[in-house]
């Protein structure tokens, strides 16, 4: 197991401090009396401002790694450091605060609440932050404008296209102003045109300094990253 250091994808990223430091991370599951090893000793460092893609076969541990990075899951052994926080050792409340402030999530299925408008869905991401109503409203408006949906704020998800729904999900993730945006197959449910729109949006956010980690099967997405990782049989390597 060799430590994978970031490739010098950009001058800014190379000069920045690491946002993630994973050491000998193992994650095992018990499934029907079988022990599944999703991550088999991952060492990885990701610096602030990087755009990293993670590829690999289905069942290779990509989503597990993403959940570890998003403080949604803990390793069976090893250390996952997000800034100063060790995900393996932090309390559930601390992990909740990390997710609320440091990490933004974008899912393949958008995961919007169908009964709430675009504005309200974005607002849901700010719920854990103790902001005033005015602050929240201004952040929501700003995030929707950033993803180009200022005019569709009062639309329900069902009234939006797939690409627009994913933009709302991205707005929900960035409204909290996180340090890192984690995206699990963000273009998996979109056609080529919409995929490009979303990628342009994500690239723009990255250019503004947001660390971007994207799990994808799509080589077109991977090609636009600064750094490409492949996760196979629980082990990660640079491509």
């Amino acid at each position: 197991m060799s430590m994978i250091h970031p490739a010098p994808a950009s001058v800014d990223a190379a000069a920045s401090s690491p946002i993630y430091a994973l050491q000998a991370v193992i994650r095992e599951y018990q499934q029907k009396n079988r022990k599944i090893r999703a991550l088999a000793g991952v060492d990885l460092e990701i610096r602030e401002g990087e755009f990293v893609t993670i590829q690999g076969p289905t069942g290779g541990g990509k989503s597990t790694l993403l959940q570890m990075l998003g403080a949604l899951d803990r390793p069976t052994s090893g250390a996952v450091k997000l800034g100063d926080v060790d995900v393996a050792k932090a309390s559930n409340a601390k992990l909740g605060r990390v997710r609320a402030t440091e990490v933004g999530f974008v899912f393949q299925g958008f995961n919007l609440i169908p009964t709430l408008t675009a504005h309200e869905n974005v607002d849901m991401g700010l719920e854990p932050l103790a902001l005033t109503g005015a602050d929240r409203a201004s952040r929501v408006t700003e995030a929707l404008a950033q993803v180009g949906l200022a005019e569709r704020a009062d639309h329900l998800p069902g009234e939006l296209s797939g690409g627009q729904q994913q933009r709302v999900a991205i707005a929900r993730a960035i409204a909290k102003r996180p340090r890192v945006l984690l995206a699990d197959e963000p273009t998996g449910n979109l056609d080529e045109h919409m995929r490009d729109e979303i990628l342009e949006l994500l690239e723009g956010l990255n250019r503004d300094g947001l660390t971007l980690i994207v799990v994808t099967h799509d080589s077109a997405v991977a090609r636009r990253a600064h750094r490409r990782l492949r996760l196979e049989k629980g082990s990660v390597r640079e491509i």
Partner: protein
Amino acid sequence: MYWTYLRRELAGRKKQTIIVAVGLAVAIALVIVVNALSAGVRDAQAQALESVYGVGTDLTVTGAAAEPGEGGGQRFEFDSEAGQTEDGTTSVSQSRLTADFMRGTLGASTVESVASLDGVAAASGALSLTNITFIGEMPDRSQMQQGGPGESGEPPSGGPDGAGGSAFDLNSFTVLGIDPDDTAVGPLSAVEVSEGRALTADDAGELVAVVDATYATTNEIAVGDTIDVGGSDVEVVGIITSTSSDADTAANVYIPLDVAQSLAGLEDVVSTVYVQATSADQIEAVQAEIEGSVADVTVSSQSDLASTVSSSLSSASSLITNLGTWLSILVLAVALALAVLFTISGVTRRTREFGTLKAIGWSNGRVVGQVAGESVIQGLIGGAIGLAIGLAGIGIINLISPTISSTSSTTGQGGPGQGGGPMGGGFGGMAQQTATDVVLHAPVTLWVVAAAVGIAIAGGLIAGAFGGWRAARLSPAEALRSVG
């Protein structure tokens, strides 16, 4: 945002919200109606008791039941000269005032003894009697004495049918001898004078009476008339009605206690002492003290007396207490089970939603609060509908105002022992009963409304607790993985 999310979720799951709310509504409506009916029946029982024992009577003291052969009272006796003979028919009529059959009596001094005890606010004695009038027509007996059976071979003539036959009739009414100077406790405390006047202290020793309004109407008795009580003409000075518009008074005729004792030949005795305690918490102590200090008496409290109220009122009470309560509990349990199941299934269906919320930083407490809040609101909607249905049900019951008959039985228990009904009391009947028709009202109390709201909130909280517990156990990673 909390309320917006909650409102949209409930509106988005109309079917589930309606089923849970309606289930709780039916249960809450049942609880409200059953409770109101129970209160109504309790009121009716109190009303029935009040008509018999008066307002404010906490205890009654009665003598031990008489042995068979005792207390039979006077007999009807006709000598050869009795009656008036006209056209071969002899008419006889005789009234007797008797103590109730097998009813023990107490010495009149018992009233003073009881009144002097600690914790007794007032005590009043009464003598419960039955006036029986024997009216008969028979052939002229002088014909029979002249001939003798088998001698002349001619059948007797005369009598009501003109062929030697006879006809007899028995009329009875209940008489209560009361102390006219002390009517604050006892049966006359629950009456009001509708015509004439009430008995006063000056009436002691006088042949005067007040008559129950229903009895007076039935027998066409008015103030100023005289009635035959125990063979004496007694002047009616007043007509009284029960303060409860739905019940008759305790007896048909009320006369001064000393007059009753004299006419019945029962000097210095009473059948019942009505006792009022100084306070409700003194009742048990007073009961014990009377039992300890006065020999051979039965002391009954209101709860003992309540058990003597029978007939359809008792059936209604039993029906509501048993069937109504259990039905309410059953429906409430089913409604709660439905609410819990729907909430849990809702959480399961929303696994991805809650996983996402946890992923974007929502705490467990916030997610649980959301689930519980939705359940409580469903419960409150059910509570509001249930309250409306329940109040409508109570309104319908009060509109119909069903009449329930109650019978206060005093067999072996004591009490005034008024005769009622066609047979009258004390003439061969073991049980002394007073029949009263009581209109059943279902009162709406603040407690009923509070109970409905309480059940609604509790139902919502219980369902929310299960749903919240389920939501809290969801690991965000597992939740997202399971639907990924």
